[in-house]
């Protein structure tokens, strides 16, 4: 028996959550006032959890490293949020959303969790509308939907290209209501640097005030980590500059198992990098694949002519273009899931067909969509025999209302007009499906320590479908955690306030202060960023879109070397008792340098291809699926949960076997 108990409730899948909720211990309102909960992170997961917990009556302290909860990286989500509302009457249902999510995750997610997610998804939309979230609407005044990769129905709700912003502002407003009532105490510009365990339970955190540098102790009866993903271990990603693994990693080093660290999503549609100075990569929402067609030239001479500036993409006729997704995957075409689309782009670029100077770019072309919409509009408006220019004008108008801000963003960065010439895109690190292992109640392996949102290992298996992270973050925060945590807190009503004046807090604070002093005293010669960039290069080249055993073994060695050098030669100017971004970055990079090794170790042990994890040793050799990823359900149908054992390389592996009772395990085919 594994030490892992996922605590999945008994009964048929569709009744599990209801039955579980009915059996959960409740805390009465008077007692809730005696219970403190710390929520680290104010993104969709943390913001919604903090608001809900405070509303239920718990005393909440919330923390964020930005200067306002509204700036959590959820704000950047563009495309949309899924929900099984079936407003479009296209055959959607809770079961179908569940099925698509499990399949999209390449059968590496936990069925019971995913079903619950699909089940509460519809409530999210009701809730958000009630909060005043201005979703896109049709002319009849009802909510509009779009489709996303990997599915055949239209179930994605959106607010232009700013869905995450609108949802986060909704959660932020719910927080504000509670902050105004004094029920949430908000700590902005505070970074969690340690988890405090007392008698085996999570009882508090140590944070650094990023303005003054002061180290503070905060205690609570339970600690919720909603600190987002760790894609920045690659240095370049679509994450915000400050996104980090520190909170989760500190919990890991205190006993929380880290699950599937190697499951990373490389998103197919991002703006390609332009130079060594590049500090981050910008996503172009997957929703663009609804209307954009992806291609590269068929002939190498055209590729060369384009790179040399002798030809423009618009010079190429239809039959000189290779719409490779439509060619390879006729059923899903440009709407294949992200992992498939990313690998296909890499395959074309590796074969030499990349269309920019770096050879790492493919086209995303809106010409057909503009013409199609233009003709439609002309018909709707009763314009007979419209000119070509008129059609394009009308079509561009439609595209502008759908994706205006994305097109503007692209133009500002690349300095080209995507209405007139195709966008250039390339895959980039975007999301981490791995994270802290949690049971059905979202509790980690440390009693009283919970993880929500992207920070947990989540419901997305080995690959996340578009528009499902926002859904998961809000499901966790509004509808799951506030209930499941009650089960644990019901036993805490007699505990009384947790003192911070104890040996455990002394010890935790001391370890943080020592870590800071060590870093400040190195006084070496290289900047924090220079180490971070080196780590990122190793991760991208050897632990990135496709991996093999040799590369992974080398990566582990190289990461160790960089880590050792970091602790000998990093330079952090200024002092610890002030606003010091270099110090804050150094604390994060120190943890990335450990996580990176565990990440590679996990990728090495998983000798199968599944979802975002593509092992070159594991591909289909023949048949219709030739060249596609080959999953190995006999040997790897489990969650890999790693236990800290003094060093990232020494971590112990625990397996949670995944049972598929309601969905048949199948080879994923999008052909």
């Amino acid at each position, binding site marked *: 028996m594994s030490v892992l108990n996922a605590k999945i409730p008994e009964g048929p899948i569709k009744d599990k959550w209801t039955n579980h909720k009915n059996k959960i211990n409740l805390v009465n309102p008077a007692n809730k006032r005696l219970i403190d909960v710390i929520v680290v992170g104010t993104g969709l997961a943390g913001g919604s959890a903090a608001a809900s917990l405070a*509303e239920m009556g718990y005393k909440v302290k919330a923390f964020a490293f*930005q200067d*306002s909860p*509204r*700036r959590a*990286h959820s*704000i*950047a989500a563009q495309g949309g949020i899924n929900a099984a*509302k079936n407003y479009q009457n296209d055959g959607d249902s809770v079961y179908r959303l569940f099925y698509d999510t499990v399949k999209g995750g390449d059968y590496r997610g936990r069925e019971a969790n995913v079903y619950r997610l699909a089940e*509460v998804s519809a*409530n999210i939309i*009701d*809730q*958000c*509308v*009630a*909060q*005043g979230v*201005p979703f*896109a609407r049709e*002319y*009849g*005044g*009802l*909510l509009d939907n779009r489709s996303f990769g990997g599915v055949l129905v239209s179930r994605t709700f959106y607010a*232009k290209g*700013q869905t995450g*912003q*609108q949802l986060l502002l909704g959660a932020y407003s*719910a927080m*504000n209501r509670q*902050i*105004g009532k004094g029920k949430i105490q908000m700590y*902005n510009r505070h970074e969690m640097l340690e988890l405090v365990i007392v008698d085996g339970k999570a009882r508090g955190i140590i944070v650094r005030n990023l*303005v003054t540098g002061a180290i503070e102790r905060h205690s609570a009866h339970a600690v919720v980590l909603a600190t987002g993903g760790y894609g920045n271990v690659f240095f370049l990603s679509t994450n*915000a*500059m*400050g996104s980090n693994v520190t909170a989760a990693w500190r919990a890991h080093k205190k006993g929380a198992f880290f699950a599937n660290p190697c499951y990373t999503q490389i998103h197919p549609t991002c703006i390609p990098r*332009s130079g060594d*100075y590049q*500090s*981050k990569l910008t996503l172009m929402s997957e929703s663009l694949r609804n209307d954009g067609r992806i291609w590269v030239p068929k002939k190498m001479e055209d590729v060369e002519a384009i790179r040399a500036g002798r030809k423009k993409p618009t010079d190429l006729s239809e039959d000189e273009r290779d719409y490779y997704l439509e060619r390879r995957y006729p059923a899903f075409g440009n709407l294949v899931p992200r992992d498939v689309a990313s690998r296909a782009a890499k395959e074309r670029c590796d074969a030499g067909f990349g269309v920019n100077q770096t050879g790492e770019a493919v086209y995303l072309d809106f010409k057909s969509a503009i013409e199609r919409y233009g003709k439609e509009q002309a018909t709707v408006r009763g314009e007979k025999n419209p000119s070509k220019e008129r059609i394009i004008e009308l079509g561009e108008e439609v595209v502008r209302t759908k994706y205006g*801000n994305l097109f503007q*963003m692209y133009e*500002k960065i*690349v*300095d080209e007009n995507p209405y007139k010439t195709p966008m250039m895109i390339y895959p980039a690190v975007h999301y981490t499906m791995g994270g802290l292992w949690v049971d059905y109640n979202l509790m980690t392996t440390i009693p009283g320590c919970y993880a929500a949102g992207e920070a947990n290992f989540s419901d997305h298996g080995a690959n996340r479908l578009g528009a499902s992270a926002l859904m998961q973050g809000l499901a966790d925060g*509004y*509808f799951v955690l506030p209930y499941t945590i009650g089960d644990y807190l019901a036993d805490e009503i007699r505990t009384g306030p947790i003192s911070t004046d104890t040996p455990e807090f002394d010890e935790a604070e001391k370890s943080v202060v020592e870590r800071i002093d060590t870093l400040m005293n190195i006084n070496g010669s290289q*900047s*924090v*960023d*220079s180490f971070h960039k080196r780590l990122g290069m190793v991760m991208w080249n050897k632990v990135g879109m496709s991996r093999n055993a040799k590369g992974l073994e080398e990566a582990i060695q190289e990461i160790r070397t960089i880590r050792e050098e970091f602790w000998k030669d990093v*330079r952090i*100017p*200024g002092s610890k008792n*002030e*606003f010091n*971004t*270099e110090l804050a970055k150094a604390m994060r990079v120190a943890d990335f340098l450990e996580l990176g090794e565990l990440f590679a170790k996990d990728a090495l042990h998983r000798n199968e291809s599944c979802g975002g994890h593509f092992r070159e040793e594991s591909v289909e050799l023949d048949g219709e699926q030739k060249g596609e990823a080959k999953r190995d359900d006999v040997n790897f149908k489990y969650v890999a949960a790693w236990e800290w054992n003094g060093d990232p390389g020494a971590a112990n592996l625990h397996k949670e076997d995944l049972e598929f009772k309601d969905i048949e395990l199948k080879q994923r085919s999008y052909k």
Partner: protein
Amino acid sequence: MSDKTMNLTLKIWRQKDAKSKGKMETYPVTGISEHMSFLEMLDVLNEQLVVEGKEPVEFDHDCREGICGMCSLHINGEAHGPDRRVTTCQLHMRMFKDGETIYIEPFRAKGFPVVKDLVVDRSAFDRIQHAGGFVSVNTSGNTIDANAIPVPKDDADEAFNAATCIGCGACVASCKNASAMLFVSAKVSQFSLLPQGKVEAKDRVMKMVKQMDLEGFGNCTNTGACEVECPKGISLDNIARMNREYLKASLK
């Protein structure tokens, strides 16, 4: 894509902390690519300073794609710099010329005290939202079906446009009165345009305006500077709408 590089002189505001006095310092930077973003250019400077053992310039930023509202900066006298409809993180060096001197200062306003160098404290914006920037609905999920109340598309679109405010504070920094009207009116408008927010509209506008005044933001004299510098194109119409709402609410 061509790749021109340039050499620049930066004049940057340095201030140790909220209590210290600050002053402008001069820094040369060389080999700046026109494709760099403005913040990447500052990264280059900071990398240089760190290696020289000097303290890097502190500035706020996070998403670097114009949505979190964390970046700020007054560049050559303009909030978010010379380009229109962009935040500082989206500003690209192709907007500048080789050999140019660029002046970089923090947002200046009574409501936004300097924290360090180019970093300012915009928590006043949060406090205005605590006062009423929400619809009083519980997060139970047991509300009515999302499609139970149709909302005319035009209202929904206008509410959305107002809701795209990123809370950056450029409107305040560009206003000679340091007024926060554009920011506050955007939130008030978003809610008052939607049926869900209308119920509390009167109460909301009174509370938010009261808090805005308490935070020391100035009066609006309709100069329109805020709209020009707002990276999200938040319209002055919102201010007019808020004034109407406020009047209605005070007359009741």
